[in-house]
């Protein structure tokens, strides 16, 4: 009797723990931990801040499920892949200033993101003067 009672208690406990685990490890959190997006190099040096960084980058991303995914720069679509879960390829990108790239699925849900930092070679920035530096009426 006592053995049966313990067995019942154990089975209830295992159901409870199993339920708890199901609750904690949701599909989304599982996906977030398994998704990855890596861009290299992740910094770009331009002559002066504000200049466009045009560079060939190696893009690597991985998801647990094969599906259609797109890479975005804010809301601008850079490239899409059909029925893929693992990509490693070179892309020529043009960005102005530090930019966050995001990988999204068809429902525009973010799978992973990474940031490319754009630095100016000079800390001071210059612009053209629009009038002769000294003028006399």
């Amino acid at each position, binding site marked *: 009797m006592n053995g049966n009672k313990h067995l019942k208690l154990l089975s209830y406990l295992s159901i409870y723990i199993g339920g708890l685990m199901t609750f904690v490890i949701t599909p989304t959190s599982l996906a977030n931990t398994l998704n990855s997006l890596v861009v290299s190099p992740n910094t770009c040096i331009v002559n002066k801040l504000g200049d466009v960084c045009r560079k060939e980058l190696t893009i690597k991303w991985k998801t647990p499920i094969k599906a259609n995914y797109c890479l975005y720069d804010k809301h601008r679509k850079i490239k899409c892949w059909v029925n893929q879960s693992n990509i490693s390829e070179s892309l020529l990108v043009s960005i102005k200033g530090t930019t966050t790239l995001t990988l999204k699925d068809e429902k525009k849900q973010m799978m992973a993101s990474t940031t490319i930092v754009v630095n100016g070679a*000079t800390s001071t*920035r210059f*612009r053209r003067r629009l009038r*002769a*530096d000294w003028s*006399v009426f």
Partner: protein
Amino acid sequence: MESSLNLSHDKVNFAEIGQWNFSVGIGIGKRTNPLFDGKDTPLYLLPSVSYYGENIYFDDGVLGYSYEVSPQLYISAITQLNAHAANFSQWHPGNFLLPSSSQASNNLPVDDKSDSYFPLTSEEVADTPISVSQLSKRLWALDAGIQVNYFAFQNMMVQLNLLTDISGVYNSINGQVKVEKTWHFPTLKPLSIKLSTSVDWYSEKLANYYYGISDKDNQMSASYYSPTSGNNITVGLTANYQLSNKWRAALTYRTTSLGSSITKSSMVSENTSNIFFIGAMYNF
């Protein structure tokens, strides 16, 4: 694209964003006044102030907001004082900041002889020069409008502007087309030479306000004059030689050929107005 090294040294053509720039020219020069009995302005000390933000800028009296369409093309909304008043004013920035020249000689062929009281014919009255001091006051006007700067290949710059009087002084418009070309010399890097030419168009209303003679001037009606619109044409040369990070030697000469509708006015004695200056500029 210019390297950062060149930019930081080229204070003539480039400005650091977000910084006020103060400089002063010390030397000798003159701006001639084409008006009869008008005072020339001696140039000994030329202060210069400028500020360039991302878009807004102030540079020696010009306040502007510029939009960079491309690194070659800028479109700006600007406001500035109209320079035509400078010849009439005793208080323009040059006269205020610089020592005033000695009184120009009065060449009026009247007053010191009794025969000046003989009646003159209408033609003689019309031909008699009128001193700037005998005219009613001409006010400074504040213009505002659009300026386009295009920096073309081989250090050429084309500038267009169309401005309107926003101060209610002459109530009309004026415009300018200017072309500049700068030469740099690989064998003599501190030296740069710039040639410029411009055509300044003035409207009939502007010409009438400044160079017309009417009942407001308290002159004989035979000397009344209503000029038409026209063009002033300017040719200039500027040479700069960078002596150090702070100092540079500067030479400039600019001559403006006044439009015929201006030179026909009895108040105008010269067909040209010139600026000459040689000296050294110091950047603070």
